[in-house]
């Protein structure tokens, strides 16, 4: 109970603020309740299947095997695998950095690692389905369509613009991390 209160302290504060807001500014009551209801409806409808998908991806995607085929010079196949590895992920972008360090350790090529980071940041499959439901298929599909070449171009641009010695330094650094 104590644990729950501590964990939801901020939520309780926000809820209190919301009630206070409704009382102090009654003019906004209808609209505030309408908007919170609109958002809650999307969330309650869309979140359960999205998280089921996230859990299933986490359990079924064979990460170790995929990394083996992502070495430098693995070409289109390695890039595609890196893209899917990132897209099957769960969690915010900053959770991808430690995973990227592991990929470096295991010998994935640098362009592939950058593709992995790009995919993790913006083309995660469960998030795409969520976006599709919340913002419409035109929005979600057009964003996905331009993101795929964009991720590859950004990865290639970084690889070209950063000197080889810097990349070697990053690999050596990743080797020392655990």
């Amino acid at each position, binding site marked *: 109970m104590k644990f729950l209160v501590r964990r939801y302290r901020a939520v309780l504060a*926000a809820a209190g603020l919301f009630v206070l807001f409704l009382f102090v500014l009654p003019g906004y009551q209808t609209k505030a309740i309408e908007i919170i209801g609109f958002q809650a409806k999307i969330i309650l409808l869309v979140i359960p299947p999205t998280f089921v998908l996230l859990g299933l991806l986490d359990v079924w995607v064979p990460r170790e095997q995929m990394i083996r085929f992502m070495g430098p010079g693995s070409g289109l196949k390695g890039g595609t695998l890196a893209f899917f590895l990132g897209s099957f992920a769960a969690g*915010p972008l900053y959770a991808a950095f430690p995973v990227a360090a592991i990929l470096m350790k295991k010998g994935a090529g640098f362009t592939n690692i950058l593709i992995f*980071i790009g995919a993790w940041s913006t083309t995660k499959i469960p998030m795409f389905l*969520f976006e599709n439901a919340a913002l419409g298929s035109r929005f979600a599909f057009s964003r996905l369509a331009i993101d795929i070449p964009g991720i590859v171009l950004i990865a290639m641009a970084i690889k070209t613009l950063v000197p080889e010695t810097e990349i070697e330094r990053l690999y050596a650094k990743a080797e020392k991390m655990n």
Partner: protein
Amino acid sequence: MDTIILYMVAGACLAWSFLKNRQKTRTALKKAFKAFEAILPPFLVVLVLVSIVLAVLDGPTISLILGKDSGFRGVLIASLVGAITLIPGFVAFPAAAALLQGGAGATQIAAFVSSLMMVGVVTLPLEIQFFGKRVAILRNVLAYGFSLIVAVFVGWVVSL
């Protein structure tokens, strides 16, 4: 309609997983619930705050700041907010949907969503730890520029 597709995909995957391996399916559902529980508190806070802000901002105000006619200035504001803030997509999408309903333009919302996901100013120090200054800054700058292109493209497709 799109929600139905989501349920169908999730249901089909779940059924397939259950037939293949019950133990793994149980682990997956446990993980799903844990992940959900983990994001719930920050999620509810943002939900409440966004609702208050959106209630106060009336349609004309939203349109003025982020509407179709706000043009490049609106895109710039939306993309900067997206680049600086750290909001999980699960919270950002419903808020973005509410903004769209309230009169924001698709181009502006796409700029926000794209820079929110690809650019991380707050997490830059962490990114530098793993990728060094050069790569991290370059990645964020390129991702920000790309987000503006995404905004124009998505806005155009939605308007078709």
